Every structure is written in C-alpha cells, then in structure tokens.
C-alpha cells in the first residue's frame, strides 16, 4: 500500500526533534546570559577564541609591565631624592668653602671648615649608596653591593659601568637608573675628577695640607660649581625619565581600556539582544508545545464509540 499516511511515530519524532532543537537553543542563550560569556569552548568560535587568548595574554603581560613601570618610576624618584640630598650637601660645601676663601678667616677656623667638608663628603657617600625599593644600590649599575666603598680615606666606585635596561613592554626599553660616575664625575679646570676625590683633597687642603689654603679654597669654588652642574644634569635626566614613564603608563591605561572593549566585543554577550532573542525562542517553544499537545490529543479513538 503506498497511500500517504500520517505515521504516528513520524509525528512524534518530528515534534520531539523540533522542540528539542528549540529547547537546546534557549538553553545555550540562557547559559550565555548567566555566564556573560559567548564562548564556552574554543570550537564555539575558533577565531574569537584565539583573539581572546591573545587579548588575555597581552593583558597579563601588560599588568606586569605596568607594575615594572611603577617600580622603575619609584626607583627613579628615590634616585632623584638622593641626588637632591647630595645637591644640598654640595651647596653647603660651597658655602663653607666660600667662607674659607676669605682672608679674614683664621687657620684654625679654616681647618674646622675642612673637617666639616670631610663630613659632608662622607654624607654624600651615604647618599650615593642609597638603596632602591628592592634593597639594591640605586647608583651601582648592576651590582648587588654598594655603589661606592670607602677604604682608608679613598672612596672609589665599585658598581658596574652601565645601569642596565628594563623592558616596559612593546619594545620600550628604559635605562633603570643612573650609575655613580654619571652623577659624581665631572671635569674641573680641564682635568676629570669626581666629587669624592675633589672634596677629599679640598678638605685636606683646608686643614693645612697645602701651603696656601685660601687660594685652594678659591680654586675649589669653581670645582664645586662644576660638580653641581654635573649633578643637575643627572637630576634632569632622571626627571625626564620619570616623565617618560608617565607617558608610557598613560598609554598602558589607554591600551588596557581598548583591550577590555575588544574583549567585551569579541567574547561578551550583548545583554538586551540576547534576552530578546531568548524571549522570542521561548514564545516559539511555548507555541509549539501547545500546538503539539493539541495535535497529540487529537485521536480518532476518542470519537469512535
């Protein structure tokens, strides 16, 4: 018999398949709304999933870059503070030497000034050996010990030649600080020297180490000016770097916002649309369930008595 039939089995199969599909779709939407994530596994949308992975990696590394930038900035500020203290000491030394250069000053007083200059020299040593937040020498380059060491009356640089660079992300390499010689070395009267050697010889001169301490003091004034100038230059460099880091940090914040927006766009769930879609799906499901119940209850057996 090839008559067209309304097979009961086929009717139930069709109905269950259709309602099952609708139900599965609604559940997917419901899941998306409750997790606020469009993708539950990579295969839901491979391209978006790969983008999300890249974004999360960038975000993670950017967090560290931001922390590193903050830390570098803090260290540079500490270095700036130390240089400020050294600068004050040098200005104080200049004041003292100016007094000492006066003929009215007696030899004993000049010797005491010499002693004070020596003390200032030691104070500058402790300032230049300042440590950063991690306990490492601010001006020692890449050494783990002190930047300058005192042996006998000689103070010499024991750090490394360069400060090393840190990667602040996206190819932004920044020198981590300045080394001692960059701050302390200067040229006085055509010959290179450093603050410690200079102040050391000045102090001993004022204490009577040379025949004419007054002249030595007068000569010293120019040298201290040169030292202050070298120091000011280093302070400017540090200030510029801190400003640079601020620019980098601003850009990091901008990029982080862009990343968040892209993440929401790629993997997020548009709330209003999804809820509306779910509502539509539920309406259709309800209607098909209702019509299914009506059709299923339609049996000839009920009518045959």
């Amino acid at each position, binding site marked *: *018999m090839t008559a067209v*039939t*309304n*097979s*009961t*089995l*086929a009717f*139930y*199969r*069709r109905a269950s*398949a259709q309602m099952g599909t609708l139900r599965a779709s609604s559940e997917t939407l419901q899941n998306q709304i409750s997790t606020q994530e469009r993708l539950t*596994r*990579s*295969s*839901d*949308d*491979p*391209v978006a*999933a*790969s983008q999300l*992975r*890249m974004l*999360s*990696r960038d975000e*993670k*590394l950017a*967090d*560290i*870059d931001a*922390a*590193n930038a903050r*830390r*570098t900035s803090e260290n540079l500020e500490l270095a700036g503070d130390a240089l400020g203290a050294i600068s004050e000491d040098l200005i104080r030394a200049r004041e003292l030497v100016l007094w000492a250069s006066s003929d009215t000053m007696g030899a004993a007083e000049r010797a005491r000034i010499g002693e004070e200059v020596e003390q200032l020299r030691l104070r500058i040593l402790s300032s230049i050996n300042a440590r950063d937040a*991690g306990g*490492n020498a601010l001006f020692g*380059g*890449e*050494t*783990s*010990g002190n930047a300058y060491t005192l042996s006998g009356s000689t103070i010499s640089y024991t750090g*490394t030649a360069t400060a*090393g*660079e*840190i*990667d602040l992300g996206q190819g932004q390499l920044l020198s981590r600080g300045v080394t001692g010689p960059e701050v302390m070395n200067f040229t006085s009267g055509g010959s290179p020297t450093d603050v410690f050697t200079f102040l050391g010889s000045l102090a001993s001169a004022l204490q009577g180490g040379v025949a004419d301490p007054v002249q030595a003091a007068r000569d010293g004034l120019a040298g201290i000016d040169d030292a202050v100038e070298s120091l000011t230059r280093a302070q400017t460099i540090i200030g510029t770097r801190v400003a640079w880091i601020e620019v980098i940090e601003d850009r990091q914040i901008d990029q982080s916002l862009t990343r968040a927006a892209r993440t929401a766009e790629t993997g997020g769930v548009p709330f209003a649309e999804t809820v509306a879609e779910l509502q539509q799906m539920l309406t259709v499901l309800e209607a098909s369930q209702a019509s299914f119940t009506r059709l299923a209850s339609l*049996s*000839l*057996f009920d009518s*045959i008595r």
Partner: protein
Amino acid sequence: MSGNLIMIGKSGAMAARAALDITAQNIANASNANYARRTLSMAELASKGGIASEPGTGLSGVRPDQVLRTNSLFLQNEARRTGSDLARADAELSGLTNAQSAVEQAGIYPALVDFEASLARLASDPLDGALRAAVLEDGRRIAQTFNIADQGLATAVQEQQFNADAGVAQVNVLTGELARTNAAIARATPGSSTMAVLHDQRDALLGEMSGYAGLGTTFDALGRVTVKLGSETLVSGVDSFALARSDNADGSFAFTVGGVATTIGTGSLQGQSQAVQGITAISSDLDAVANLLISKANSAQSTGAALDGTAATPFFSGMGAAGITLALASGDGIATAPAGAGPRSRDISNLQSLRDSLSVNGPAAGQDALLFRVSSGIAARTITRDALSTIADTAGTALAAETGVDLDQEATNLLRYQQQFQASSKVIQAASDIFDTLMGIG
C-alpha cells in the same frame, strides 16, 4: 443453498477477525521504530466456471490471503546510509572534542602566559628570591600541564580504541544474528506473519549494524540479505565472516573481514578511526610546542650564569609533552645574567633575550595556533555533523512516515472490520432465517 450462505458468512467473519487482529497488532506496535505497518490482503473464494454450473452457485466467500508488510527498499537504504554518515561524524566529533577538552582544560596556554609574566616580573628585580621561586614554580606548572594534557589525549585515544573494539565485537554478534535470520527467512512461508516478523528483524539488525559501519546490501527474492563491507562479504546467506581491527602507525584503524583487508567508508568505526588519527596529530603538535619551550628555555640557560655566577644548568629535561619535567632545583639556578657576569649580577640581558625569544613565535603562539587548529577543525565538523543529523532525521522520519503506523488509519480500519464482522454475522443470521422458513413450510 443456505449451507453455502452460512459458509460465506463464516468466511467473512473469520476474515474480518483476522484483519482485526492485524489492526490490533499495528496499534500495539505504533511506537515500535523497527515495526513496519502490516495489511491483510483478501482473496475471493469461488469455483472457477464449470460448464454446467449456474451463475452464482460457485461462490464460497473470502479468505485472508497474505500479510503484506509495507516496505520501501529505497527509504530503508537511505535511512541506513544517512545513519552511518551521522554515526561516523558523531564518533569523530566526540573524539576530537575530548581531545580539545584535554588540551584546553589542562591550561597550557594560561600557564605559558603566566611563565612569561613571571619572567617579566623577575626583570624588575633579578636578585629577588621570591620572584625567582615564582618563575621556577610557573615552570613546574607548565611541565605538569603538558603532562596532564598528554595523559588526557592518551585517555581519549584509549576510549576511542575501546569503543571501536566494542563496536567490532557488536558487529560480529550482529552478523551472526543476520545469518541466522537469513536461514529462518528461507524456511518461512512467503506472505505469512512469520515472514513479516523476520523481515522486521532483518531490517532492525541491518539498521543497528549500519551505525557501526557503512554497508552494501543486496536482497534476493525471499528477502535474504547479502552484506558487503567495502570489497569483502560480511554476510552471505547463512554464512558470516568475522570483522577484526588493528592499529595503523598514524593512529587510524585497519580492518579485515575473514582475514582479508578491507576499508570501511563510514559508520562509527570509521569515525573512531578518524578521531584517533586526529588526536595522534594533535598529540605530536603538542609535543612540538613542548619541545620548542624546552629548547628555548634551555638555550637561554646555556648562555647565562646562575645567581652565584656559575654556568647555568638546563631549565627543563625530557622530550615532548609526556616527558617534559622541571630540571632546575632552585630559583637561584635561573640564568638572568649572561655567562661571565659574576655572582649576584643584576644584569638582565640574558633574561631579556629569553623573554624576546619566547614572545616571538614562541610556545604561547604555537599553543594558540594548535588550539585554533583543533577548535576550527571541530567547528567545521560540528557543522557537517549538524547537516548530517538533519539529513538522517529527515530520512528516518520519511521511513517512519512510509512504513510506520498511522493511528487514525488504524481506527478507521478497526471500525471497518468491525462492521464487516457484524455484516457477516447478519449473513449467517439470514441463512439461519432462510433455513427456519424452509423448515416451517412443512
């Protein structure tokens, strides 16, 4: 001639009762997917024209002729074929999805990113023991996630092989059953209920079998089936041949029927074969990512100095995702400084070169590419599977519509045969009345 009338009435009542039985049987099997609707064909009983007989004298009623089983070879075949395709796609997809879960949920990618992040943090203070320990622990975590993913993949392969073995065993059981059914079909009377039941059983067995492997079927006049699997005959008449499975080097399966190699085009066995092949490829890709990490980390170590200034030792040991293990015993062994930098150097140029080599075409990028390959493969196969599922559903529904039971039709038949029965009983009543009238004359 009331005797004849009674006999005609009786035959009508009997035929109606037999038809009612068939209708009841149809109603009872309305939800049996393997049941094909039956109808009873009737044949008139009449003596064929003798010379002397008067018109009308040779009639002797009706008899149930044949139990007809509604069948559509095309739709049956179509339902089997699409079912095989769907089973193949399902098996392959489920295997690959397991592999994806194994690789993705092990968290290799986040672990690689965390490792890079720890290295970046270490750059801010290379002498900090806590930061060094963090790098070391993140390295250990990477090694473990690789191991876990590898185990997950191995489990996925085992599961597919186990399922395939179970499938092969089941196919062998079904071929035996089918051969026995063929034997029974040969003995059954054509047009009998028994034959219809046997044909139902044959189709059910073929349907179940085609879920495991795509079959080629031919039927003879009685309805006995010859089943071919690829080029080899699996069932022919009462003979059945054993299917066996072995593993190829690339992970796919090789099949033999009765010891002769054959190919299976579709069905869950083929899907499992493809899945294992896919998982094996993923596994070797994962090994490549692990080896990339090992070589990058170790080559950075080889050009650097440990915290105490001595030459650094390798970061990882072993090969591949299964073998990778953390070799460094302590965070102090991480070579942040280049070789010859001296003890406790804060020089981070070696660390920086490791970070650079990891970030450009490094293991994180490799893992991302691997995950992308796996997931896009799954996404494409999901679409195929959904399409095949629709096709198979349609074929199944079409078959059910063609051969299934329509309750409305059966209700009508019930009424029809009931009326036939009642009318036949009236005929008997009439014969009895006629007889009584004749008797009353005397």
